[in-house]
């Protein structure tokens, strides 16, 4: 009897449907503490695989018999070994195919809404890392915002929908994940836009994204709104006067951090102005669609990450700090650790370095850590 594989897509579905799952994570303790599969109905046991080489008997008592058991490791090798050992003892488990690397890369498309004239707006939820990308489709045309490195997912999705990708946007120069934006543009002939203030040091051609810029996609439109603070170029997008893509400036339960390009003190004023003046001037009826989530609680029941701007003004702590000094302290002091390899990720996104695929995977390991709460 040998253990069966569970794919990252199957795990993502379970997480989003809040199904019960027991995870036996056999990575070392530090790796588990740093980053794991999160979910509302998941129980965990972390025992490093190297402590199980003599046998799994002692673990069996700690495993439930009323829910599925998933054995997880970094790349899958150790989890297959442990799952096979458990199978020999008559305990049925599955292992995560491709390990946490596959988990980090899986994208789950979730439909946010219909757009007018038969158009559609999709959010691509990168469940394992908390990154969110968007595709607006209308009358055979598509625009993409904040695409991840897994470009095939976007290219295939557009093809299935019979849409030609016309515009590819990045809200800012990302520091937590490698952008697929320019590669999608190269593959499709679409225009790739970056905010020019973030593009110092960029080695490839791009189209400068200015505030007020408007692009048509079929019957729909995407407008750019300059909202600096996470980076000096950070730009939000408004789709059809209804949807607000906030990038890394505003999240559902937190706000952006200004320090990942090394200029926290300089940019904190911009961040405050974007959150407390520029967004305040918009209608409360806009649906906020951020570039990240940090905890599974930020997901709606359908798996989407979206909330009305008016609700965030009431509920999001980062939008309710009247005292300017208190705000300044919150976003510049006691910040969480920076994302893994964030400096190399920025260089990659500027085209200054081009690491091999395997190295890019390694660089993106771990949570996104783009927010402060």
């Amino acid at each position, binding site marked *: 009897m040998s253990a069966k594989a569970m794919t990252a897509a199957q795990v993502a579905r379970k997480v989003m449907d809040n199904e019960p799952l027991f995870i036996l994570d056999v990575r070392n303790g530090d790796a588990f503490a740093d980053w794991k599969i999160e979910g509302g109905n998941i129980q965990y046991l972390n025992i490093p695989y190297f402590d199980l080489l003599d046998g799994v008997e002692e673990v069996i008592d700690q495993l439930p018999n009323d829910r599925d058991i998933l054995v997880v*490791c970094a790349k899958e090798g150790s989890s297959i*070994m442990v799952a096979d050992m458990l199978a020999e003892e008559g305990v049925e488990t599955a292992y995560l195919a491709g390990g946490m690397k596959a988990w980090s890369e899986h994208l789950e498309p979730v439909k946010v809404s219909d757009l007018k004239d038969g158009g559609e707006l999709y959010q691509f939820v990168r469940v394992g890392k908390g990154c969110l990308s968007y595709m607006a489709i209308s009358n055979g045309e598509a625009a993409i915002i904040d695409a991840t490195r897994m470009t095939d997912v976007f290219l295939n999705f557009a093809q299935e929908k019979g849409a030609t990708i016309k515009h590819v946007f990045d809200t800012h120069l990302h520091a937590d994940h490698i952008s697929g934006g320019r590669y999608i543009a190269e593959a499709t002939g679409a225009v790739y836009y970056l905010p020019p203030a973030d593009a110092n040091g960029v080695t490839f051609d791009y189209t400068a994204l200015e505030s007020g810029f408007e692009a048509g996609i079929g019957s729909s439109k995407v407008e750019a709104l300059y909202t600096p603070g996470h980076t000096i170029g950070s730009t939000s997008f408004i789709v059809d006067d209804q949807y607000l893509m906030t990038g890394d400036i505003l999240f559902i339960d937190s706000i952006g951090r200004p320090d990942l390009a090394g200029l926290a003190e300089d940019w904190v004023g911009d961040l405050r102005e974007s959150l407390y003046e520029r967004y305040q001037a918009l209608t409360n009826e806009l649906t906020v669609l951020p570039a990240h989530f940090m905890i599974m609680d930020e997901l709606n029941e359908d798996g989407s990450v979206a909330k009305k701007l008016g609700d965030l003004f009431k509920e999001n702590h980062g939008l309710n700090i009247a005292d300017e000094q208190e705000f300044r302290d919150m976003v510049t002091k006691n910040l969480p650790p920076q994302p893994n390899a964030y400096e190399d990720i920025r260089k990659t996104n500027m085209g200054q370095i081009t690491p091999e695929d395997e190295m890019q995977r390694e660089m993106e390991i771990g949570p996104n850590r783009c927010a402060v709460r």
Partner: protein
Amino acid sequence: MNADKVLDAKGLACPMPIVKTRKEMKDMDSGQVLEIQATDKGASADLTAWAKSGGHELMEQQVDGDVLKFWIKKG
């Protein structure tokens, strides 16, 4: 650094570097040093954690091109 034994674990994926290291260590005496050469990037964190949990001492580690080298003294 001098080693009593050298283990070539290059090209092996997790969990094999640790499985082989453990096997070699079993045949060694306390205080002897094993040099491990691996190319799996996960080996660094895992050997460190394994040595600690097993009471061994990770004395040194070096990067030599694509090869990670570790010297572990048996506890």
